[in-house]
């Protein structure tokens, strides 16, 4: 065959291959955007996952003063008398709701006590985004009137009724919006923090030992081979190891169940090989002549490593950090047994919780898989990954600059 034809066929194959990957990537993005974009809002990001029903009465200490209530010019229907703005919304589950868009700081709705048994008297304030179910108010005669959800009809009517008839507010029944992912975002950040905090110093130090100090003997090549093998261990195995071996360690820190700390430790171990490998690759690239130069100037070995070698390797090390963060964000199997699959709205290091990826797993494995929410979370994960890449790149540039 003609050499030129062969060459063109090869070229064609590479074109088709790269076009294919671009198409696949675009298809995934399109799926996520078309399913999830409509759900993305600040409520989704900062909101609780679990909707809670609250029943609250205006606090006895509160003294109503109409003149103290301020102006509001935003969206929705505003009652200047009661300091509350409402609007009509349709929820993700196709329910018509009357939602709170604004509450004035001096409004009675900001000074309430819970009526729910078990948390008697706990101070509450109506939060934006909640949907109102019913209200008890006082009329001109001082009688308590029940304004049910049906009688409220819509936002405009509710405000009109309250403005015209109410002389005081007694209590309110409302539902906070759910489906938020704030807890999982925090849990994800905790996991990234814990795992990097542990795996970076250990990983970088081991790489320095292996590449700068260790001589080429049997034991060291065995260590190296072990590290390479660890890279290929399935993450669910790390999860099993975590829950059996590391759980007692987290107990020392005060954990009583599986916890984010346990997940973070497990991920730290899972990241070690990646960090060691990429640091070592970065060290290999640093020219030997720089080490020689430094040592010939009477620098000690550690001075040489910290002042010359590591700064030169910083970009390679950061690549490892990026890979590591990527793995933490994307990991779910290693976390199933270690952080649990229970979505937690207010995770702490010692509590259970789900990372964003694990949250997708959780909401999709229920009886009614929520594709929209899952897609929205995926989009948010992509944005986080993108943002972290960006930040780490900037850090890398800064570090490189401070060195040049």
């Amino acid at each position: 065959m003609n050499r030129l034809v062969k060459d063109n066929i090869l070229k064609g194959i590479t074109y088709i291959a790269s076009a294919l990957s671009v198409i696949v990537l675009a298809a995934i993005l399109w799926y996520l955007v078309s399913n999830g974009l409509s759900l993305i809002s600040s409520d989704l990001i900062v909101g609780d996952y679990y909707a809670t029903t609250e029943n609250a009465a205006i606090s006895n200490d509160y003294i109503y003063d109409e003149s103290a209530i301020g102006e509001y010019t935003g969206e929705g229907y505003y009652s200047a008398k009661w300091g509350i703005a409402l609007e009509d919304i349709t929820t993700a589950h196709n329910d018509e709701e009357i939602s709170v868009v604004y509450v004035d700081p001096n409004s009675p709705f900001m000074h309430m006590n819970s009526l729910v048994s078990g948390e008697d008297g706990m101070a509450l304030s109506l939060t934006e985004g909640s949907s109102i179910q019913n209200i008890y108010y006082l009329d001109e005669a001082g009688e308590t009137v029940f304004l049910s959800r049906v009688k409220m009809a819509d936002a405009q009517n509710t405000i009109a009724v309250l403005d015209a008839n109410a002389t005081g507010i007694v209590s309110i029944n409302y539902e906070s919006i759910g489906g938020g992912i704030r807890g999982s975002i925090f849990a994800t950040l905790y996991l990234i923090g814990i795992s990097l905090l542990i795996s970076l110093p250990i990983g970088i130090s081991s790489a320095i030992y292996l590449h700068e100090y260790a001589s080429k003997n049997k034991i060291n090549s065995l260590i190296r081979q072990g590290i390479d093998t660890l890279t290929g261990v399935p993450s669910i195995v790390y999860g099993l190891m975590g829950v059996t071996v590391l759980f007692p360690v987290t107990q020392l820190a005060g954990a009583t169940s599986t916890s984010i700390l346990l997940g973070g430790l497990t991920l730290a171990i899972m990241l070690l090989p990646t960090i060691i490998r990429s640091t070592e690759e970065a060290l290999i690239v640093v020219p030997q002549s720089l080490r020689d130069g430094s040592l010939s100037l009477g620098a000690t070995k550690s001075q040489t490593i910290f002042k010359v070698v590591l700064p030169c390797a910083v970009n390679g090390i950061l690549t490892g950090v990026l890979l590591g963060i990527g793995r933490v964000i994307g990991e779910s199997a290693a976390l199933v047994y270690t952080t649990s699959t229970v979505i937690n709205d207010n995770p702490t290091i010692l509590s259970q919780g789900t990372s964003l990826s694990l949250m997708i797993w959780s909401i999709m494995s229920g009886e009614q898989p929520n594709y929209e929410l899952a897609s929205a979370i995926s989009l948010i994960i992509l944005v986080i990954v993108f943002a972290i890449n960006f930040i780490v790149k900037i850090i890398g540039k800064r570090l490189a600059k401070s060195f040049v």
Partner: protein
Amino acid sequence: METCFDVKNIDLFYGDKQALKDVNMEIYKNRVTAFIGPSGCGKSTFIRCLNRMNDLIEGCKVSGEIIKDGLDIYSPKQDIVDLRTRVGMVFQKPNPFPMSIYDNIAYGPRCQGLKDKKKLDEIVTTSLKQVALYDEVADRLGDSAIGLSGGQQQRLCIARCIAMSPEVILMDEPTSALDPISTSKIEDLCLELKKDYTIVIVTHNMQQAARISDYTAFFLLGEVVEMDETDTIFSHPKDKRTENYITGRFG
């Protein structure tokens, strides 16, 4: 004339391969000593013995003695880091650190714990002036040294070495990658530095050895065939092999 290094019976092995055979010589203070010889004869290997840079090479074993100031530098009592502050080295390929020009020169003193900004400034300025680089870079001391030309980089490396005020400067083919102008600048520099420093230089350039050195040693296959005053080596070599090498090169 004071002796700087008294080299006695140095044998050096890379693994099983012997690279230096029974090397004996005296290197004098405040003189320029040149090493010449064909490629692979062990010149670099030997010059690296003088500040123990060979320690960094895995499988390299040295026996014999190199006496400096009454102490064998290969004895366990020798502090290697301290030795290297007194015996500086300039490499064949310029190897500036990827830092600013200022930081490159301040690197050595800083590693010794010097923090005083004024003193560092002074060291940087005088070192750069000594290598005749100051005027070229005075207004961009904060710029990266990587942006300098090859000849400038090499002079920077010499300045970096001088900044440590060592007793000895070892140079392994410092001009092999440079143009004639940079080369002659560095040669002038050697003659200048000789007043304050002992200089050992490896070179493939006979004229260069003849121009700048006081003593010349001819290496062949890991052995020192002949060492004498440069004039003698180039005019009346005692050994036939030296003569062949020198005349061969001169054509």
